[in-house]
């Protein structure tokens, strides 16, 4: 479930990448804190950009009690690592941390964390946005929600960028 790799980034220095699937609840902010404390982040990273997706109690107008997140063991990890490599090739990031929940998830629990570190804010912000968008649209995960009348598969992700969605 864990992947740590080093390769030259666009700046020619080794970049670090960690991708993990988590079957149990995690606190995304605490994970970032621990990751920073573990010393991976050096004085060259002036910018940190973080996105956290958390389970909401509503989706498409209906109250949601909990949900199950199915994935494709092997392919899902591979896909997430591929997304991170693409981000690293496009932007000068020093470090990428991606955590994604699997299994049964309750309201208020964190589902996904994407954090990137870079010298400049543009690289960090753009890389984080790229990763979360690709992850939402291409990574093999499937949500099944428990609503009042039973269970339902979520058919598509919202674009996230329309006020109406």
């Amino acid at each position, binding site marked *: 479930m864990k992947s740590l790799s080093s390769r030259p980034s666009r700046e020619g220095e080794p970049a670090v990448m960690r991708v993990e699937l988590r079957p149990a609840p995690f606190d995304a902010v605490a994970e970032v804190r621990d990751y920073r404390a573990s010393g991976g982040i050096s004085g060259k990273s002036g910018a940190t950009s973080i996105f956290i997706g958390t389970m909401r109690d509503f989706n498409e107008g209906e109250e949601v009690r909990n949900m199950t997140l199915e994935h494709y063991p092997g392919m899902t990890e591979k896909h997430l690592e591929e997304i991170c490599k693409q981000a690293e090739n496009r932007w000068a990031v020093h470090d990428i941390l991606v955590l994604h929940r699997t299994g049964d998830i309750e309201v208020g629990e964190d589902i996904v964390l994407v954090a990137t570190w870079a010298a400049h804010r543009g690289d960090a912000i753009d890389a984080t946005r790229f990763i979360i968008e690709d992850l939402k649209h291409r990574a093999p995960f499937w949500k099944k929600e428990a609503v009042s009348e039973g269970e339902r*598969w979520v058919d598509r*992700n919202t674009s996230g960028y329309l006020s109406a969605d």
Partner: protein
Amino acid sequence: MSIIKVKFFARIREEMGRAEDQLDFRHGLKVSDVWNWASGDDEIPEAMLVAVNMEHVKGDPELKEGDEVAFFPPVTGG
């Protein structure tokens, strides 16, 4: 290995009543043949996603011995 490993996920898994299966490999076998064998349908539904050996594929590629073919609906992670 002279088999093809087949996997189903999410709604497709439920519709197929199983998470995985396997069939014997034969020369010239295509993704659509596997889908026909699994579902009885000639055509792969348009919205269906297909991966071969954990890589997304488009169209109807030919398979080789030992390949793993997966069928699943549009993804909804994150």
